[in-house]
């Protein structure tokens, strides 16, 4: 017996407290906070308007300016301040990387778990549908949507969620099939646990590491995917910046103006990394077999 009051302390709080004890997790949370604040407060912090093509932002030959005292991140090919665009771009990229990606992750996980657990015809149907979605040319769908709807951030978020769950579903499916054969699941069934409970209380926690991997890596890929879709006309249209767009527009210039590629690239990596730090720590905190490790 410990001090006797441990009972019902409510583990979520405990988990959070434990999370806060980890340096890396705190670093991650701080980074996320910085990005979110940057995005929200962009109009206040940014030195310029995001679409302002500054006269002195280009050389006479029309070349962008490297980072210096005035333009701390340099300027882009239209003479706009990159720092400003990165700040504003964070808004778009956060929505894509966090919301759209999160939604895709959610759909994928649910489909994967359900299909992997039930197998039988339910699983078959779900997985064949997943195969279908995977085999289906997503870009084409994007182009069509672009033509049908007014391009907007929400359309692109929807498309990404619609397209990106597939891979997660596949991986989760395979892992679930394996988990479902484990004895403790059988034990759980004999206790009378309903399917939902088994799926979400007993199988899901074991998938957390995988989900974290896909979730955090998904941030990078969806942010870049957004750029491709916007390029095809589905997403945000110029001059609205997003981190993916900035890279995409400028990638051929990476030798002539490396800052235009590497700075937004670093921003994406940083965001993904931040989530990963938190995710990893969370996973360790939630994973009992890792107790005692710092």
């Amino acid at each position, binding site marked *: 017996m410990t001090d006797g009051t441990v009972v019902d302390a409510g583990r979520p709080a405990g988990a959070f407290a434990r999370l806060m004890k980890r340096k890396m997790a705190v670093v991650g949370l701080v980074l996320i906070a910085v990005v979110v604040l940057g995005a929200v407060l962009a109009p206040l912090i940014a030195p310029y308007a995001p*679409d302002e093509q500054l006269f002195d932002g*280009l050389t006479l030959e029309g070349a962008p300016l490297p980072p210096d005292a005035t333009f701390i991140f340099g300027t882009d*090919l239209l003479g706009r301040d990159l720092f400003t665009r990165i700040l504003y771009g964070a808004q778009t990229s956060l929505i894509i990387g966090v919301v759209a990606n999160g939604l895709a992750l959610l759909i994928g996980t649910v489909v994967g778990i359900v299909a992997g657990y039930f197998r039988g015809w339910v699983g078959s149907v779900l997985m064949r549908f997943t195969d279908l979605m995977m085999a289906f040319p997503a870009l084409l769908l994007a182009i069509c949507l672009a033509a049908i709807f007014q391009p907007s951030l929400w359309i692109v978020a929807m498309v990404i969620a619609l397209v990106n769950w597939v891979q997660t579903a596949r991986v989760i499916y395979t892992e679930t099939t394996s988990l479902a054969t484990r004895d403790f699941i059988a034990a759980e069934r004999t206790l009378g646990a309903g399917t939902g409970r088994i799926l979400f209380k007993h199988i899901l926690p074991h998938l957390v590491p995988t989900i974290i991997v896909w979730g955090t890596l998904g941030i990078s890929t969806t942010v870049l995917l957004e750029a491709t879709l916007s*390029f095809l006309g589905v997403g945000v249209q110029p001059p609205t910046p997003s981190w993916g767009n900035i890279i995409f527009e400028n990638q051929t210039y990476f030798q002539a103006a490396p800052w235009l590629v590497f700075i937004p690239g670093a921003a994406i990596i940083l965001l993904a990394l931040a989530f990963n730090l938190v995710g990893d720590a969370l996973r360790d905190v939630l994973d009992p077999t890792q107790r005692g490790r710092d």
Partner: protein
Amino acid sequence: QDYTPSPDAKAGGSITVTYKDDVATLDPAIGYDWQNWSMIKSLFDGLMDYVPGTTELRPGLAESYEISPDGLVYTFKLRAGVKFHNGREMTAEDVKYSLGRVTDPATQSPGAGFFGSIAGFDAAGPDGLSGVEVTGPLTVKITLSRPDATFLHVMALNFASVVPKEAVDEAGADFGKKPVGTGAYKLEEWTLGQRLVFAKNADYWRAGVPFLDSVVFEVGQEPVVALLRLQNGEVDVPGDGIPPAKFQEVMGDPAQAAHVVVGGQLHTGYITLNVKMAPFDNLDVRKAVNMAINKDRIVQIINGRAVPATQPLPPSMPGYTEGYAGYAYDVEGAKKLLADAGLADGFETEMYVMNTDPNPRIAQAIQQDLAAIGIKVNIQSLAQANVIEAGGAGTAPMIWSGGMAWIADFPDPSNFYGPILGCAGAGDGGWNWSKFCDEALDAKATEADSMADPAKVEERLKLWSDVYTGVMEQAPWVPVFNEERYTMKSDRMGGEDALYVDPVSIPVNYDYVWVKQ
């Protein structure tokens, strides 16, 4: 007036040319791409041709021609002894067959429309054109339904190339993969999606050309990489020119800059304003837009690879109105015009633009310029096909033409009018994206094109000049700039620069270039 190659020109050798996009077809009736345009020119010949590196017409397979005084009958006398690559001699029948083939709807030639002035065009079918008659083994008489001053240019188009019937019949739909012509080169090898090899046609009817033994085309090559390979000595001519991303670097390095060739181009980049849509149906608004665009800034953005445009025609095009100032950049004036039109508070509209660099950037520059006079432009940056569709359907208020650009098919002012500014193209699906249709100007244009008499050239050009200034008064377009071509060639390449920026044999005239060693 014909071309004399440099005395240093030597025969022999092989060069490598790269392109990004695959070569779709080498069928002269169908090929209409950047990369196959000049290839087809080297494999085939038409009755007419251009002096290399210039826009001057010269006879091709026709040794000479006669035009009837009313300008309706053209009689071509063909060269004797011209052989197809399959060894057969070319005859007048082949000319008739070829013109019949290209205008037959079953061929689905994108160039069929150019032959609209030939009598019987509207009834064209498998039996050929009634206006083309064989009057001797080597004479062809072509009768027009209306005088057409551009007809000789049309006869110099790839679409008018002479092809042997038996080869077409044999290859069937695959003629584009197994081309047989009379040109300076013949196709030796084609590995789909990878490379094509052209070998010198030893029997070529023009003495002394081509100089090269073979030309190797490598397709699927990223322009940036092509440049790297050029520096490495693996590539002689990067067919897609210098990519924008590399431009500064190349020009800033004297060693590389020495290999750069600059030339004019029959190109205009413009914004269409849909005159059928409010508020662009208001001339003042269109003028205001014209005045609001800071063309110098846009040229700066594309690294000065263009000159600001004042009118639809590019400066190197005959008929260009020298000294015409167009609409000067004048923000205040533009605002005032808008205010006059009752739109002092501006308005919101959309501009379609093709999604490849640098077009979205140019669009954003335009967007900013228009924002300065209160017009809020939303950019729709889409794939080429979607933009063309929106333009044709007339649903796009504004379109930036870049990327789908108008490079002239032939160096004649009429080429900039018909489909893109005339009433003919203003219908649903037509390429006249501003849907501009002015009957009076159309009549004037028809008149100009009827002036087939070579003696009236000056007069005709004046007429065209009037047509285009007339267009500018109505301001359905904002001509933004005329692009210049910057390309490169390797050390070993010989022949004057004009051959590498040939205004007609775009991008390179393979028949006349040569290698030094």
